[in-house]
């Protein structure tokens, strides 16, 4: 990564680096030290020793991250308003919602599991999409939101605990499980949550962690 870049390539919009000193990047896997040079848009800097990605310069990163996280938040609202599955047994009709699944676990004597479902399918996705929007949208206009550093830290923490896609697989498995004893069909909430999953993946992949923090540092100074 230390090779010289020609002037034409550096003009291809690297994100602004905060002032002061040479910048370094370390590999998360092998701890090899690299000088953090700007890379052209759409490419990634890789570790020279083990090949792991060090940082990426994503195209239209701030706009994409804000747009997709906003879409994810809106779809999350839809997913909470409408049921995922509708089940008909004889004359009974039951609806499945995220809150309903968590409440049923709490009511039926397993509060820990209920809280886990709330954390993994509601709190973590909300922190991730909400945090990303809160941090990225003001950066589009060059200023940083109050408490953005803290929000960004919490956002990174919540990332592994976001299990929207796992919950969707759970809905599919339960549908097949219940299909033999009742009439089950998908509802709006399921498709909305599938949209949340796609938008969330696009939002998180939209901006690199180093870029986000560098931009935040520049806007603050």
């Amino acid at each position, binding site marked *: 990564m230390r090779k010289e870049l020609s002037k034409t390539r550096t003009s291809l919009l690297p994100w602004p680096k905060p002032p002061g000193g040479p910048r370094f990047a370390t590999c998360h*896997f092998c701890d090899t030290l690299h000088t953090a040079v700007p890379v052209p848009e759409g490419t990634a800097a890789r570790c020279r*020793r083990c090949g792991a990605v060090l940082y990426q310069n994503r195209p239209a990163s701030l706009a994409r991250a804000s747009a997709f996280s906003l879409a994810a938040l809106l779809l999350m609202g839809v997913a909470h308003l409408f049921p995922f*599955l509708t089940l008909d047994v004889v004359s*009974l009709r039951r609806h499945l919602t995220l809150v309903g699944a968590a409440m049923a676990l709490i009511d039926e004597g397993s509060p820990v*599991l209920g809280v886990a*479902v709330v954390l993994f399918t509601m709190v973590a996705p909300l922190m991730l999409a909400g945090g990303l929007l809160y941090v990225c949208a003001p950066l589009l206009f060059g200023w940083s939101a109050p408490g953005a*550093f803290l929000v960004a*830290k919490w956002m990174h923490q919540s990332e592994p605990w976001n299990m929207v896609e796992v919950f969707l*697989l759970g809905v599919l498995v339960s549908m097949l499980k219940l299909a033999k004893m009742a009439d089950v069909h998908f509802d709006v909430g399921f498709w909305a949550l599938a949209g949340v999953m796609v938008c969330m993946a696009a939002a998180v992949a939209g901006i690199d962690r180093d870029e986000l923090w560098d931009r935040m540092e520049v806007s603050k100074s």
Partner: protein
Amino acid sequence: MNGALTKAAACGLAGCHACGRVVAVSQGRCPRCGSRLHLRKPASIQRTIALMIAAAVLYIPSHLLPIMTAVELGDVTQHTIISGMITFWKEGSYPIAIVIFTASILIPFLKIVTLIWLCAAATGRVRPSPSMLGRIYWFTELLGRWSMVDIFVVGIVVSLMQLGNYMSVAPGPGALAFAGVVVLTMFAAMSFEPRLLWDRLDEQLTAVPVAHP
């Protein structure tokens, strides 16, 4: 080994865990985000092994105890993870049976085995190639969350199958144990430090210590 490659730790530099900024570890806290700086995650092997032992202990009751108890017209049936999988297999729903087998039985088991093996490699007890180990580590971090699928199935079925006197389903103690396995293995994978694997490799390659700049 390429002489131009140096390790950040050899220069006293640490990459911040939270924001990725590389600064001298002597500063104590990251000047950008305020997180504590470490050259390597503290006590990573001890923490990983402790969490793995806890997960391995919980793994046994999670498969022996029922994850769901169904009451159908007064008949009580208890379902374990394995019995649910066998039912799907017998009915001919092979893909679902394979998904449940992979997510609930294979992945947690493989995760416990690979993380203990990675800890052995990080302490120098076994010596496989680090690039392969890196891939294995990435794989365990990626797949661990999918084990949670069974807990969500329990939640969904419990929520839908509240049909008054006709049928009701309640979560069993096995589900709690299984959720414990998933969460503990996730924490274990997070506390593991992959850079230790490369440190061991460097120790082997440089029999004579190299003077660092």
